[in-house]
């Protein structure tokens, strides 16, 4: 099933099954990375040999709202025994929100040898696959410092998003319908996170991230995804697309779907997202559409 399912995606190599991961647990050329929203979940047990990359501690700069720089990325990879040749396989909770986010950050630094485990942590656990609490004692590597972080190709800043809006280019709001309409200022099942206004970026179309996921956290098939995004939203391979959510993690999931599973060429994640857009003085919003 997985082979057939994966081969229909535009980039079948970007996704691996839980079985594939279990078959490669002893493969030294692979580093399995768990990235979660639940900060202590890794410590309760994880895929044997997996390392933990925490979105806030490891991927975010600690004093600027931004990602780590090239030196920080070098240090992160070296500390986790990753070389440029290492295949990094990401998985995590929440249907892979944060693993897609980590995958996306790795792409900012050009580490293209990366994959996401379909179904994430919940599927692995529900299938009764092995877990342990051993934090791997890895020999540090000397990951070469990337020449730069590519903030142009797959990342949209506020100014980019404003230009996108003015140009009338396609934008996807992947939050819940209630957030999109401005009925609520918090995510369903989450407390308020500092959002001052409800609504969405003018012109953005609503397509919640969850429409791309099955109940078990796996991605929907290529045909199902095309029905949602290509036929439903009218997005095409040649479109210049921006996706956003609240802080960029749910939109990383959609970004992965559009960029890797459907193969759209130009897809950017606006990681400033609604927490930035909705709160910024002078920014226009729409409600109730």
């Amino acid at each position, binding site marked *: 099933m997985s082979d057939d399912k994966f081969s229909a995606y535009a980039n079948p190599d970007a996704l691996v099954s839980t079985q594939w991961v279990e078959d490669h647990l002893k493969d030294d050329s692979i580093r399995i990375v768990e990235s979660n929203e639940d900060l*202590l979940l890794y410590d*309760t047990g994880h895929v044997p040999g997996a390392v933990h990359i925490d979105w806030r501690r490891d991927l975010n700069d600690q004093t600027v709202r931004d990602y780590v720089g090239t030196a920080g990325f070098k240090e992160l990879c070296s500390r986790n025994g990753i070389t440029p040749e290492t295949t990094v396989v990401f998985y995590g909770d929440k249907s892979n929100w944060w693993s897609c986010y980590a995958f996306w950050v790795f792409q900012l630094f050009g580490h293209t040898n990366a994959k996401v485990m379909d179904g994430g942590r919940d599927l692995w656990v529900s299938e009764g696959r092995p877990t342990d609490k051993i934090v791997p004692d890895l020999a540090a590597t000397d990951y070469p410092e990337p020449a730069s972080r590519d903030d142009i190709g797959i990342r949209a800043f506020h100014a980019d998003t404003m230009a996108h809006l003015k140009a009338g280019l396609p934008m996807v709001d992947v939050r819940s319908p209630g957030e999109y309409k401005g009925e609520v200022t918090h995510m369903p*099942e989450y407390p308020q996170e500092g959002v001052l206004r409800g609504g969405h970026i003018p012109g953005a179309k609503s397509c919640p991230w969850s429409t791309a996921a099955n109940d078990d956290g796996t991605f929907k098939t290529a045909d199902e995804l095309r029905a949602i995004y290509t036929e439903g939203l009218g997005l095409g391979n040649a479109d210049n697309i921006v996706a956003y959510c609240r802080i960029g993690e749910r939109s990383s999931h959609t970004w992965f779907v559009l960029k890797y599973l459907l193969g759209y060429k130009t897809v950017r994640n606006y990681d400033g997202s609604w927490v930035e857009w909705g709160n910024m003085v002078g920014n226009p919003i729409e409600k109730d559409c």
Partner: protein
Amino acid sequence: MSYPAPLQEIIELSEHLPDPEKREVLISYAESAAQYEPTEGETFDLEDIRKDEECTDTVGIFLNVDDQGRASYKVELGAKVQTLTRAMTSILCRGLEGATLEEILQVPADFVPRIVGAELVRLRSQTVYYVLTRIKGAAKVQLNRLRAAS
């Protein structure tokens, strides 16, 4: 404001630990959360079971108050509740055991980062405060009931 003695003890044991040990302690607390779930046939003075819109799963708060006015809590957590919230549940059930309802209502939330560490109290882990809010809510309702009855 002083904390109930058992909670004070947990705070003092936790706050000076280095982060890795803090995490280990929290995992241990999280894994012991099941022992604070109500058992079959157990009865309570107050039961408050609900799924709030801002929480990922159902949380049930169960309260008994003995004739000396000492409170005892049990908490039932849904499967989707975060590990940190499970840990805080254990800490609160243990730390507030035997406190009066008035004492519980006065417990400030500032002990949370002292136990958990500032690194873990952040965006997407704010539900760490949720169980305390629910426990206080139950204490307030029960206190009002007792006052009305007297």
